[in-house]
């Protein structure tokens, strides 16, 4: 099982600058996994977006998973940034799945009449991986993940 992780941008050298920590971008079985966390800033999304598209250009990537389970608030602005990122990936031929929207986030988005139509969503990371062709298999009581077409 190979898994490598890299930062989507080099950290700032100047500790006085209030630079939010860069979002990690994880390579996993030919997929890219972007876990967003906490209060996501524009600059973090910019960095993450550039890193994702850069990776897609450099190597064959079969899918992108954006996991927002750690994000506490999604407003119209973040919605637009997420839609832009997944659309850009699709334009480069990479399908993406957004997962981990919490109940309060979903209810708030609905109350505002926002929809994330056009973005494929899944409940959690497992479901997102399955949508992108990673199958979970039971084996000797344990669960093992196998890459390949479903």
């Amino acid at each position, binding site marked *: 099982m190979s898994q490598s992780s890299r930062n989507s941008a080099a950290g700032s050298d100047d500790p006085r600058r209030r630079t939010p920590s860069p979002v990690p971008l994880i390579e996993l079985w030919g997929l890219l996994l972007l876990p967003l966390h906490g209060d996501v800033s524009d600059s973090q999304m910019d960095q993450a977006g550039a890193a994702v598209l850069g990776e897609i250009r450099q190597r064959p990537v079969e899918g992108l998973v954006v996991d927002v389970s750690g994000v506490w*608030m*999604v407003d119209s*602005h973040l919605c637009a940034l997420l839609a832009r990122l997944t659309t850009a990936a699709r334009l480069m031929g990479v399908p993406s799945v957004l997962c981990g929207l919490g109940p*309060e986030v979903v209810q708030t988005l609905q*109350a*505002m009449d*926002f929809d994330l139509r056009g973005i494929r969503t899944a409940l959690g990371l497992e479901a997102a991986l399955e949508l992108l062709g990673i199958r979970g298999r039971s084996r000797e009581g344990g669960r093992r993940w196998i890459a390949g077409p479903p």
Partner: protein
Amino acid sequence: MATLERVLHRHLSALNARLVSDRGRRLLRDPQHPEGDELPRLLEVVRGAAGLFLAREQVAVLMAELEPLLPGGRSLRREVTVRIEDDVRVARLAARELAEHLGAGALFAQKLATAASELSRNIVSYTRGGALHISFDRGPPRRVRLVASDHGPGISNIDEILEGRYRSRTGLGKGLLGVRKLMDTFAISTGPAGTQVTTEVCLP
């Protein structure tokens, strides 16, 4: 003590308010005038006693109203100067913090923070700066008010936006309409001198 009793009266019957304040009074060196160092302990006793008569969420609101009495206590207002993107984050965190402070649930906090985020985002995107005021109004009904004001150029197509006929590429209309749907009241005045949005949401 007079302030304490006044606040207690808003939440409890006269008899129960009296019971709670008497229980607190017993701690004090001078029963009419609590001294600064006695206040935290006094509020703890009041919290415990009020819990006999009120539900947990009601106690949270009561305590939130009493806390400004403490020296250095946090008031139930927040004011955020909004100029750059970081201020949007400060504004939504302030809104969430106030909601949690009032003992509101996660969904209420989420809605309030999202509305605060949308309104301050508009200020950052379309004006040179402004402010967001967040305040609790004990009502009835108990509610939280957001007032976003700026001295920007005003929103010329406001009617079009509020009627939902405007499909925005930038997100201005979407955010404003979203806030109106999210909150219980919504009023906007806009002109060449600036824009002010006042919106309220009632606590469940």
